């Protein structure tokens, strides 16, 4: 059995009129991982997962789920895939239980299942099972969509912008749920432009912009590889400008001259910090505090997407 549950090979999408939504994408998703697809609005995230789920017809390429072609063997493949869409698209007049049972049956499973009760309890929806969807809050509707996507017990789950329009509490609950699903062996692909979400949950990260998959890497490796560290020195006396003697370190003045910032590559053997501090001493620039910080995934993302433009 291959380690890859999903393989996307040369998949592209060009709409009528020539608009290229997706340049050829090659991507392999490992069994049991949480993969975050990061990108700004209109980057092609939803197009890519819509193609995998059979909602959008690709212009080229093929998709394999556990070795089975998603077009040729679409019945077998789709039974294994669940999708939580970005939009809160629901049947307003249906009850929670009815709509989740509908989804389970639609994907070829019997509607009578203790699993549905367990699922609704898991998502704090059991008490609302007889409520009409139109009467639920936005956050509860989002939970219903998750329940519908999980109703047929998929082992590959797509979460398209799961945190869009939900409050902090529900977001945390969803993160916990995603981790629980992963523990059960569900492979999860989430698209998001909330970097915090990817940083919190993902094992691996893909960055997509303008229809191009810019990179795919382990989150930790990515942050190590592309991450920068910053050394902030709080000065005793503010500086009006960076002294020319410090030019080789390219420091910047922040906070109205009260902070001197030196950005360095943490992966380099020589960070330049000792020589920088020594030079400051020689110039008589005193500091009363120092602090180091590492760049977040957000910084890396902004750099990558900015470079791609």
């Amino acid at each position: 059995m291959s380690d890859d549950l999903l393989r996307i090979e040369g998949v592209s999408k060009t709409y009528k009129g020539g608009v290229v939504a997706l340049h050829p994408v090659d991507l392999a998703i490992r069994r049991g991982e949480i993969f975050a697809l990061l990108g700004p609005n209109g980057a092609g995230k939803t197009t890519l997962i819509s193609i995998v789920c059979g909602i959008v017809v690709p212009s080229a390429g093929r998709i394999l789920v556990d070795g089975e072609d998603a077009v040729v063997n679409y019945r077998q493949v789709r039974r294994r895939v669940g999708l939580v869409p970005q939009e809160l698209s629901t049947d307003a007049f249906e009850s929670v239980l009815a709509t989740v049972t509908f989804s389970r049956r639609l994907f070829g499973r019997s509607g009578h299942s203790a699993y549905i009760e367990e699922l609704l309890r898991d998502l704090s929806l059991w008490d609302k099972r007889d409520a009409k969807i139109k009467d639920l809050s936005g956050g509860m509707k989002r939970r219903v969509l998750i329940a519908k996507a999980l109703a047929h017990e998929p082992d590959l789950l797509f979460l398209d912008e799961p945190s869009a329009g939900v409050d902090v509490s529900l977001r945390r609950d969803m993160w916990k749920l995603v981790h629980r699903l992963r523990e059960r062996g569900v492979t999860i692909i989430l698209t998001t432009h909330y970097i915090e979400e990817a940083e919190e949950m993902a094992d691996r990260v893909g960055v997509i912009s303008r229809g191009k998959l810019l990179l795919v890497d382990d989150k930790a490796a990515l942050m190590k590889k592309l991450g920068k560290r910053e050394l902030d020195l709080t000065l005793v006396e503010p500086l009006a400008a960076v002294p020319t003697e410090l030019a080789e370190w390219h420091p910047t003045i922040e906070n109205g001259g009260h902070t001197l910032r030196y950005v360095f590559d943490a992966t380099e053997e020589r960070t330049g910090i000792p020589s920088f501090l020594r030079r400051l001493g020689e110039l008589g620039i005193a500091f009363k505090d120092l602090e180091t910080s590492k760049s977040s995934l957000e910084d890396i993302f902004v750099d990558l997407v900015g470079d791609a433009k």
Partner: protein
Amino acid sequence: MNLHGIWAIYRFEMARFGRTIWTSLMVPVITTSLYFIVFGSAIGSQMQQVSDVPYGAFIVPGLMLLAIFSESILNASLGIYMPKFTGTIYELLSAPLTPLETVLGYVGAAATKSVAIGLVILATAYLFVDLPIAHPLAMIGYLVLVAVAFCLFGFAIGIWANGFEQLQVIPLLVVTPLTFLGGAFYSVQILPEPWRTVTLFNPVVYLINGFRWTFFGTADVGLGISLIVTMGFTAACLAWIGWIFSTGWRLKS
């Protein structure tokens, strides 16, 4: 075959019907009663028998099909249009369903409603007229066939439509006029030339007369040609739907 999937769609659609069951059933009952009062009693009492059939009984098959046509198109088109409108179509498109299974679920439910409404109209008719049915099994069979054909047509219209207005265009501007001009309330034989010949180009004439034959054992056109036209219309709708699913037209981007 994904029987659970077909059943899910069928139940969902029947539940939608159930939510509006009183208006769904009472509207055709009231409309039929009004037709009987106006055409059957007020006008019909002044008219001779048509092909040895009392006028009040003569119009029953046409009245039933008038409702079947519009209800079938409306129910089937709304069934598939609503998921497009609300965005829930994503679930249907990503489900392990073949086009045939999808059509069985939607068209099966819409046809069930149409046949139920047709039978309610028939029952209402018995309150006003004596109505012999010469070939009851054939009547039921023809009723189901016409309901399925127009539900298929409605299903395709629901996919084609880009708004609620478009859902109404074909039933109101094409089907209803063709039904009124297709011998629903009169025999084609009483029309003067050239209108009689012109009327024979209206396919609805054959549908109504085929159905009328099952009641009275006689009609303006032969049963064979009525069946051929009905089957041909069904086949054309199936071909249209088959093409829609094979290309993803107005379903998938």
